[in-house]
């Protein structure tokens, strides 16, 4: 029995091949395959090629189940840059790959937990709509946390 291969297409129109039984770790892909057999190319318009390459690398891992937990942790640790992790977390969220999403979000949380407010805004691309007075009120109320 030959293994069935799926083709995934990134936002920038690059094609990636992956064996179907590995690809269906993603609940989103599994549902697509179930619905229409997914004989042709599966477009992923929100995932860029660099991130998709990472996701494919993750899905292709050959880890024993008891080492999987450590592997996922190491996998995200090696990509310690916040922008990369955010892309990876977003792709894992879209594709519904729970373990990868958990690990990537946890890594981001760990990196930003001691950030200043300004650093957080920059890292997560948030616009500041707080007046200095409002900021001060919260700071005064929870002085111990600052």
């Amino acid at each position, binding site marked *: 029995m030959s293994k069935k291969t799926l083709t995934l297409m990134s936002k920038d129109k690059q094609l990636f091949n992956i064996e179907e039984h590995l690809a269906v770790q993603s609940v989103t892909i599994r549902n697509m395959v179930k619905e229409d057999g997914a004989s042709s190319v599966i477009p992923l318009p929100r995932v860029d090629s660099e991130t998709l390459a990472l996701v494919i690398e993750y899905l292709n891992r050959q880890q024993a189940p008891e080492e999987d937990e450590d592997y996922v942790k190491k996998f995200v640790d090696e990509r310690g840059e916040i922008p990369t992790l*955010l892309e990876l*977390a*977003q792709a894992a*969220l879209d594709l519904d790959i729970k373990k990868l999403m958990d690990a990537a979000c946890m890594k981001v949380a760990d990196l930003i937990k001691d950030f200043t407010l300004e650093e957080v*805004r920059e890292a*997560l691309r*948030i616009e500041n709509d707080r007046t200095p007075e*409002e900021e001060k009120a*919260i700071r005064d109320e929870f002085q111990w946390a600052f």
Partner: protein
Amino acid sequence: MANQLPNELIVEILSRLPSKSLIRFQSVCKSWRSLITSTEFRLMHFHNFNKPNPRYLVRRFELRENREVYTVYLDDQLFMPTPRLNSPSVLPVREYTTKDEVILWNPAVRRNVTLIPPIFPNSYWKDLYLVLGFGYDTVSDDYKVVRVAYDGLFFSSRPHVEIYTVKTAVWRVVTFPDDLCCFFICPNHSYTGTLIALRSTFRNERSRIGYNRHHLIRCLMFHARYSIMTFDMSTEGFGEIELPKDLPLLPTTKVVVTVVGEFLGRVLQVRNNEDLITESGCGDLTIYNRETCHYVYTSSMRIMLEDTLFVDRYQESLALLDAERDAILDEAKVEEGQDERFDDESLARYEARYLIQLFGE
């Protein structure tokens, strides 16, 4: 700003942050503030943050400092203690009175609420015993305290049960079922996860901490057998779980005492790796690994008040974040009040007792 992150991703990341960071990040922008203070987020954070960060809360009454000490231990290889928590109350031993005071305390957000006195006073019976339970009711999205008071001298009298709901801030009487023939109740320390420390300054105080809907109290039935009494925080109904009939009958105070390895200890908790956290004879915390049959001491011999050691899972929550600040027990006041002096006389008395225990056998 270009290329904003989807809200769904932001929520996933924030729900994995410690409470302290979340409290600061309320200032990041308006939508984060409303997210962090919402019920949905509170529940999601409780699950997402605590699962990968297992910890334990240990409480004991240390005589050298003449006060309760709360420490959080990491559930890792070394079982390392992290810095202490500043508890809202610093009562010295001799002031452990019969005051009807119950405090709800959430160390993760440093908020505490002193409950109004219950309907049934502590002074009603000379030997009144209290069992306090705490839990979260998923149905009404509310935190509840259950207080069971019973007569330690005349066991035939019915226990008085009251429930406090945080949203309404009042105590309410609940009928104790007639068919539950209760003789002696001891609180069960094992079926819960920590959310908020609950304590009372009553001298026979037993406090329990929990998040689970089901609240379990171990009880000795009148017909000289043990069973587990259950209390459901949502339906507010009592139930009973039978235990094996051949369970040897021990004095009630020995119910939780177990022989592990060469020690006679009290099993306080089972860790995630299945090590047992036990209390050996002198109030020391020890870790017992069943595979290697190996004991690890985690704490030096400290002199503490008998029967004050308490261990439960420590789980952070944003509960009470919106609570009014407690005027009587403000954090600042507590910091000031940390008087390091201890009572020589009472210390000598407990030291004597402690040494007798140590060399007595």
